[in-house]
């Protein structure tokens, strides 16, 4: 091989190496669609391990995945529900590696089945903004009630272990209209209607939040 040819071939290889950052940018710019995966289980530690490994292999998300865990009161059907974009991904019927992997997790956790006081694990990713649809009512960190935001309710009483609050849902807004606490600070908070908004009665340890997601401009607020 003569010198000119050698230099030409070396340049070609150098182009390949230099294109690595470009490749990463191209790969990352094609972010997968937003998703939310809800998993109800009585084995949260194992479920987290399996799902974490699945996420690393699957490419469901390339940046970061949001995670929350809540205890559920009462009886629930343990299951895995994956929404990709606005579409339900029925992994029992779909083909492909992701469907098989989810089937494997479900088998290992012995899902679906009826569970008592299970944990709800929620994984989500993507920048999507979603409307609030559900009013989640917590006693401490246990999810006690889930109400539909589009169904008006007057004077819905929530009993906690240290107090109670009364909620009203009207015109897709929810407010605390009564409380057993002394200062009734929670009643002065007004009505909420945006995804992620929260009402809290501290003495009663009752928290009311709206589901959904709104793109936030800040990560925390000092007040």
């Amino acid at each position, binding site marked *: *091989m003569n010198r000119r*040819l050698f230099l030409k*071939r*070396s340049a*070609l*290889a150098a*182009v*390949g*190496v230099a*294109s*690595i950052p470009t*490749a*990463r940018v*191209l*790969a*990352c710019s094609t972010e997968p669609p937003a998703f939310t995966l809800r998993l109800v289980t009585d084995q949260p*530690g194992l479920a*987290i*391990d399996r799902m*974490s490994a699945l*996420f*690393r*292999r*699957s*490419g469901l*998300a*390339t*940046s*970061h*995945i*949001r*995670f*929350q*865990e809540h205890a559920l009161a009462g009886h629930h059907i343990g299951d895995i529900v994956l929404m990709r974009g606005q579409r339900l991904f029925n992994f029992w019927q779909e083909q492909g590696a992701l469907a098989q992997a989810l089937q494997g997790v479900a088998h290992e956790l012995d899902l679906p089945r009826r569970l008592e006081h299970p944990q709800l694990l929620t994984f989500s990713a993507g920048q999507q903004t979603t409307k609030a649809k559900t009013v989640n009512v917590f006693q*401490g*960190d246990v999810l006690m009630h889930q109400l539909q935001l589009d169904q008006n309710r007057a004077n819905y009483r929530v009993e906690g272990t240290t107090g109670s609050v009364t909620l009203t849902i009207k015109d897709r807004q929810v407010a605390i209209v009564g409380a057993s606490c*002394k200062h009734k*600070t929670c009643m002065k908070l007004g009505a909420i209607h*945006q995804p*992620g908004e*929260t009402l*809290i009665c*501290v003495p009663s*340890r009752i*928290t009311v939040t709206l589901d959904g997601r*709104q793109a*936030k*401009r*800040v*990560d*925390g*607020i*000092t*007040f």
Partner: protein
Amino acid sequence: MVVKRNESMALLSKRWFSLLAVLVLLAQVAAAQTGDTVWFEVKVSKVLMGTHVDATVMHADINAAKRALVAAFMEMERVEDLLSSHLPTSEVSIINREAAQHPVPVQEETFAILQRAVGYSTRLDGLFDITIGPLTSLWGFNGDGEIAIPEHAHLESAQSLVDLKHVDLNRSDTTVSFQKTGMRIDLGGIAKGYAVDRAVATLQEHGVANFLLNAGGDLYVAGEKQPGQAWKVGVKHPRQQDTLLATLAAKDQAVATSGDYERFTEIGGQRYHHILDPRSGYPATQSQSATVFASTVEEADVLATYLFITGELAQHHAFIRVTADGEVQSSPTLEAKLFRVGGKSE
């Protein structure tokens, strides 16, 4: 023959280099797609210390993040059990009940906090005073009763009990005693900040480097939200609902705010809030809100109270304040960090 061999070698080299370049490209695309560096944003919220505490940890291992968060929240609960004047079994409640009768022995940790409180008071011209308990109780801000303007005679009587000089801290046996009956310690201006600092230390001891802790507006941010992306902190506007006074990027910093809008009542068109000026016994009137950035939440908490009352703070501290007339002031050290002033909170 030689010519043919050279040509075939050249062709082989050409194909080899082409294949090499393509393989490198494909390998990196594949690695970028399915890299093993997925970060989880693990969030926990609890009602604690009379407020809502939110914690967000960025970690590659959810279970490890959970263990660290459980430990951090347990640590805050432990500090609350130790220092809350709302819990009859806390050391502060025992001090308040018994220290006028006899010296009350306390844990080293409680003693250290009380010593630091004395230090803050000395440094801040006596305007940070943990013996303000009789005044806050009189106004009704801490008790179960309604908030009301106290009678002048009662106010004077309560004010006579407000002075750290009447508290004896005995280092040799870590005891606390009051020189006057009726004195009360109120750690509201320091305890929450201290609890958050303890939670910060706990998370760091568990190897968590990137997190945000927010206990009712007392914040600590550590590390980054994502590689190359700082945590963003908003400062609530004291008068405009759902509006931010300022937003800025922060890293490894504590932030605390004192404001007249969290616990207050309006009587005769006048706002009476919980941040009392020890000099007058009345709610301080210089500010609507005061936000201070510091290395610990405890210090930020204390300085925010001081800035709110006096309207002044040494310029090397980073702060943003809204005066009683609504004017926004910020320190030169903060201006460089501010993204913007104003804007919606969501």
